[in-house]
């Protein structure tokens, strides 16, 4: 187990270095940074001085070394557009994205698993048909359309919920949370639902497919033959066996929810890292883009590590995985 985690950590470091290198290349070669930093009538001497001051005359591996060292200290330079340190910008906006991501992941997981089990246990029921068809609609409608639709119904027509922003926030240390105020919670509802809808249908279909598979296995038949109750069989024996693929997909989905909630954040003007990224792309704000790239990779690497550790907890066969063959 420890050896496994150590191995995974080494792999993670390699992944991060590769991503950092790509981010560095973006930083270095998407246009000349000096052109953005210096005014248009700067002289050649000014260029040379700035180049030396910023270390851009060094060979690229030395520059990459300093890039990694700085990244490790959380320094990604200064945003061209906002003239603030990039790390500070991301940290400011991170709580909003994380709260949104976790809220929508919770919704997706709870309803996805429940509906998945329900539709698997009643494969021929009318309600199953309705849910499955509905889920197809959910998958095929683009996120911005769902967001706009929800805004129209619940914010514009019914006026139940706010249509944009985070509402009031409370500062706890550097973390700015919207979960403690009523307006913050109300603001969270629509974007969280919008963001969760796609994951929800995905998880539901996955749980259903896995569950149908597991219900056909011998050990479920044997559990029936032992006279166990339906409840014990469905929720104890069957559900746990469906969890490994569900954990994998949910983990990756959570990663992409954190990293790529861009559309939802834009539709609801949610002040998270996604909208920061979109604005930075529009302004060719290279330091922010590079930092964002590294940040996204970090999110995925960490989530994958957690997912791998969860496998061990769920499946005992992996715990003494030292055996070869089957």
């Amino acid at each position, binding site marked *: 187990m420890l050896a496994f985690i150590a191995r995974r950590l080494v792999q993670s470091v390699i992944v991060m270095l590769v991503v950092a290198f790509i981010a560095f290349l973006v930083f270095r070669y998407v246009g000349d940074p000096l052109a953005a930093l210096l005014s248009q009538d700067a002289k050649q001497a000014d260029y040379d001085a700035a180049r030396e001051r910023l270390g851009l005359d060094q060979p690229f591996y030395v520059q990459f070394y300093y890039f990694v060292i700085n990244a490790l200290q959380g320094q990604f330079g200064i945003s061209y557009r906002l003239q603030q340190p990039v790390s500070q910008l991301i940290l400011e906006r991170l709580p909003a994205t994380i709260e949104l991501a976790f809220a929508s992941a919770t919704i997706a997981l709870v309803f996805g698993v429940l509906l998945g089990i329900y539709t698997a246990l009643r494969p021929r029921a009318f309600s199953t048909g309705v849910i499955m068809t509905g889920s197809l609609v959910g998958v095929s409608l683009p996120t911005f359309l769902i967001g706009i639709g929800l805004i129209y119904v619940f914010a514009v027509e019914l006026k139940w919920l706010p249509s944009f922003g985070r509402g009031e926030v409370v500062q706890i240390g550097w973390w700015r949370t919207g979960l403690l105020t009523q307006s913050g919670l109300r603001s969270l509802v629509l974007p969280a639902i919008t963001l969760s809808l796609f994951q929800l249908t995905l998880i539901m279909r996955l749980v259903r497919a896995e569950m149908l598979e597991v219900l056909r296995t*011998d050990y479920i038949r044997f559990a029936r033959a032992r006279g166990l109750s339906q409840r014990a069989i469905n929720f104890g*024996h069957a559900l746990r066996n469906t969890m490994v693929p569900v954990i994998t997909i949910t983990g990756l989905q959570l990663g992409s929810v954190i990293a790529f909630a861009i559309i939802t954040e834009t539709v609801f003007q949610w002040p998270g890292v996604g909208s920061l990224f979109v604005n930075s792309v529009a302004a060719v704000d290279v330091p922010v883009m590079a930092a964002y790239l590294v940040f996204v990779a970090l999110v995925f690497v960490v989530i994958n590590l957690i997912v791998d550790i969860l496998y061990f907890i769920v499946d005992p066969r992996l715990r003494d995985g030292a055996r070869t063959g089957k």
Partner: protein
Amino acid sequence: MTEPVLSIKDLVVEFPFRDDVFRAVNGVSFDIMPGEVVGVVGESGAGKSMTGSAVIGLIERPGHIAGGEIRLKGERIDNLPEEAKAKLRGKRIGMVFQDPLTSLNPLYTVGEQLVETIRTHLPLNEAQARQKAIDLLTEAGIPKAAERIDSYPHQFSGGMRQRVVIALAIAAEPELIIADEPTSALDVSVQAQIIKVLKKLCSSHGAAVMLITHDMGVIAQTADRMVVMHHGKVVETGTVGDIIRRPREAYTIKLIQSIPTILRQEHAATPAEAANDDGAYVQVKNLVRDFEIGKGSFTKLLPGKTEIFRAVNDVSFSISKGETFGLVGESGSGKSTCAKMIVGLLRPTSGQIIVDGHDIWAGGKGHQERRKRVQMIFQDPYASLNPRWRVADIIAEPMRTLGIARNRSEVDDRVAELLRRVRLDPSVMRKFPHEFSGGQRQRIAIARALSSQPEFIVCDEPTSALDVSVQAQVLDLMSELQSEFGLTYLLISHNLAVVRQMSNAVGVLHNGVLVEKGPTDAIFDNPQADYTRMLLDAVPDISKVA
């Protein structure tokens, strides 16, 4: 007269399809008395498992009981509502399934599964249930049950898992145990132990047993009475001794005759002549194969000792042209590893394999020769044929890759010829594998093996996935093809009777070591190694009927 535990009358199980109704069980009637072991025998599709499922109320939809009645101690159970049926399961009727590797939930410890079952049926608290679970495991012959109860299923061997399954089935002291092929997935020596455990536990707990199996040998050793089923109907019922010695119905006679036996047979192949190893067609010399265990790609880089598992340890034998060498052994003995090395799928750690004078692992010419001359027939004809390919393409593939025949009409002619050789109609070449039965698929697999015109065929358990009567046909076909083409076979099997019938010489593998080899009759009639003797004793055989 005492009342039967189980009484089945005119049972009909139907599967409705869109335009047809398939009767899986068609008017079956028999009784099982208290404490009695009744064997239900028949080939696949005979409806024997379906009868068992009907009794315990676990018929897969859309199948359903369409007629007749099932009584448990006189009380009718086939028309009970689902909840009442669920209460019978485990409590009054226990069930043991075929494959112990898949019938336990892999994510729960053995103890958790036992305690759960016990507490569902008996009014015990956690600690009492756990104690009962330990007692049951001990009774089922699991050593150090108190320690092993917290192990997961994958930490037990197949035989041990089947003991756990039996312990689970008898946990609530049911009156009837349905054992559906309880030993078919196990090695012979383990099979004998499991039969003993099942018999002992059922008699000490006073449970009657309905033993469903295709293996007459198991029935002969275990059951008091037997029911022979064919196409959903009972063909013959009677005591085991009566049916085996004096079968009345044509089907039963045919079934009994097609069972190969480990006793000497008249048409057994001629004994191998004094083998001059150097002139032999296939020579296997000091074959060794090691596997490293417990090391991933990363930890390999770290210093430390590598654990090595020697799967095949210094195995040597030779086969003369046109003869059959039988390699027997239990699972894990290294038979299949040997086979893989001989056909060139796995590189030996050391040792030599020489086919017709060429070392097949030497590269160059030997390698090319191997692909043409050495072919393999696999165990499972359901898995070894690509389901998306037509039969013609499957059989023609070796010809195409090896460049034996190139243009279309020539390939088609050869495929048609091969199909005729394996006694199939050439018109089937447009069909897909799923349209064939198991025996027919194995014929297609044989045709594929023959299509590169090989001289040496390695057959890895060629008939163990097949019914006895089909097995007999496939074995006959193999013998005929051998004399027609002068083929040399390496026959790998755990079924000693099959090996006895087919081979000229035999080698016995145990834990990777060849413990004994010699002419077939000498080994079977006068075994020298203890292991061989133990193996031969463990074989359930209809001739051993009490």
